């Protein structure tokens, strides 16, 4: 029968030829045995030489690298679905989804697989990462939690919306099963997989969080910030559709409702972070739209200090320095019911 591979890296390429080397260096530098790893490039009909570069890698590392090229450009969720279809005869134990330019530091795979072998209930391992700016400088992110921990998502669902606002992470998933993949496709379309809040979906199972930075991702500012925010809002609205429409007062419902409100506040705070970023571009209109979006998703946010300060800064055309820290709080202790290691 077909061989089951340990780790599949699925790299989505969309005209990013110059960034492919960086990602490949990270994969080639792993301490985990190369014979147990595979890389699948999903090329979204790139025209900038990405495909040719991938073919070069295949020639150099024929047993490591594979490729699927779309005949015409498509959207990320469809690309992911295509990847799942393509991999149906190549079962995998573990998988990672990357964009060109994302770098996985050398010990991550070994560490993550070790953890998942040790605890069969862990469905994914998340780690802190650095942010690589366009000038190639690296920015350290403060860890979301003070300690490495294992989180039971069902119990701590709201945690993903109450902590790590705007934080980016990288993840290794257990397997690439069809059922799980449907949910991943869902995430891909809606919540950026590098967003900590995205780790909330699917809502069952356990995840491990590592405070150490085990990689970096290229800083990605969406072309259309409002669409990006709206897409995430749409994701949350779909996710909480049942909670919002089924009214009863069981304890479970109360918890779901609180999680939902935390999620809407989280997306509103993400909008505030985008508003702050406009200071670099001077796009006042976008900043105002971000405020409007934030209020629309969470009416009470107008009373938050960060909201008030941003609004004032826009009106008076003054600096927004220091406001970000009012939203992005430092590392917090993991909840008491988490397993800390």
């Amino acid at each position: 029968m077909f061989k089951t591979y340990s780790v599949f890296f699925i790299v989505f390429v969309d005209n990013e030829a110059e960034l492919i080397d960086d990602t490949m260096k990270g994969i080639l530098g792993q301490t985990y045995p190369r014979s147990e790893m595979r890389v699948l490039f999903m090329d979204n009909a790139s025209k900038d030489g990405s495909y040719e570069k991938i073919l070069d890698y295949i020639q150099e590392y024929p047993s490591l690298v594979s490729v699927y090229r779309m005949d015409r450009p498509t959207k990320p969720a469809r690309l992911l679905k295509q990847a799942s279809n393509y991999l149906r005869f190549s079962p995998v134990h573990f998988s990672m989804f990357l964009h060109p330019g994302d770098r996985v530091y050398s010990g991550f795979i070994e560490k993550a697989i070790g953890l998942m072998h040790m605890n069969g209930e862990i469905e994914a391992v998340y780690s802190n990462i650095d942010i690589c700016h366009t000038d190639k400088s690296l920015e350290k992110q403060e860890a979301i939690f003070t300690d490495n921990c294992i989180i039971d998502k069902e119990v701590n669902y709201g945690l993903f919306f109450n902590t790590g606002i705007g934080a980016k992470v990288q993840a290794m998933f257990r397997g690439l099963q069809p059922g799980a993949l449907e949910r991943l496709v869902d995430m891909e379309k809606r919540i950026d997989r590098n967003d900590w809040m995205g780790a909330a979906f699917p809502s069952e199972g356990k995840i491990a969080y590592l405070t150490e930075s085990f990689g970096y991702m290229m800083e990605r500012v969406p072309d259309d910030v409002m669409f990006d925010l709206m897409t995430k809002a749409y994701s949350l609205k779909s996710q909480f559709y049942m909670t919002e429409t089924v009214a009863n007062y069981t304890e479970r419902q109360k918890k779901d409702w609180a999680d939902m409100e935390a999620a809407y506040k989280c997306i509103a705070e993400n909008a505030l972070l985008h508003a702050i970023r406009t200071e670099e571009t001077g796009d006042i209109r976008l900043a105002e739209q971000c405020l409007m979006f934030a209020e629309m998703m969470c009416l009470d946010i107008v009373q938050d200090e960060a909201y008030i300060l941003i609004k004032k800064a826009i009106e008076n055309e003054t600096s927004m320095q220091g406001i970000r820290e009012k939203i992005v709080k430092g590392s917090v202790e993991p909840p008491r019911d988490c397993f800390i290691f």
Partner: protein
Amino acid sequence: MKRKPLVSIIIPNYNHSMYLDQSINSALNQTYSNIEVIVNDNASSDNSIAVVKKYIDQGVVVNKNPQNIYNFNYDILDDSVSGEYFVLLCADDILKSDFVEKAVRIMEEYPEIGFVHGERDYIDEHGRITELDPFFNCSFRVNGEEILPIFTLTDIGQSAQAVIRTSAFVRAGKHDTQSDHLNIDREQWFRLAMVSDYAYIREKMALIRMPETTSETSRIIETFYHPIALYHTAKSFEEWAKLNDYPRVSERIEVAIKRFAKECLGFAKVFLKRENYELAKRYLLFIRFADRGIISDEEYQKCWTILQEKRGASVEVDEYKKSSNYAFRKRNYEPPENYVLMEDTI
């Protein structure tokens, strides 16, 4: 003699046992002869299976999902299609007997046509029919790219109003289960028009169930899901347009969003009237978010003042629940540019 191509009529069902007899009969009674009927039951808890069982002798097949899989059921439906053409007939809708025959005749004559829409009327839960104005003023066929921009604004038809060529459907990437479940048809028409041509029959070909009080509509509007999902759908079209270079679609998106924002003003008024100021505020913020220019609109300003002063009781407004409101909409639009009149084929 050449055998007629097989047409699959797929009936997705969830707890619609009270309507199933009508939908199955309308599928079985098609004047077109080579038809298979497959009911896909999404784990109903009513007596749907007992209803379908009556038709097993007539070749109807029923597949019952082990559990309700919501939107992902579209993936299961997609796998059920084995005909060269198919119709997705919702379990509460009804087909006119000659729809498949007419649509297949058109697609057999014009292989580049990927889907054919027929017209509809609404039928409520008591069987009362509301006649609607046809969308276009004639029957026609047209290049897919010409009809694309129209789908950014409206769906023209629901799933029971279309006969689809399976090969075009596969080329278009089948259903998109990640779409908003209320816009999945429109999304589907859009992607079909990206890969194939389109035909429209200006005859009533289906009855679409539209209960007088639609709880689903109330829910999506009252939870503020509706504006976010529609905005998202419109922008998704823009995303496709950018990927495939359809400048005329991109131009339409802003118009579509503004038009929708204006429609939302009606919802805002309803919630002002109900003195649900929180929801009214969300709608008014959304409207301004979607259409910055609306701030100078007199009606919008009036609503905003009413919100500030919290005197919603004074608002004059029609409730949105009455589906019969649709009957008053005037349509009969001119088809898109470069269309070919098609009265003869039909």
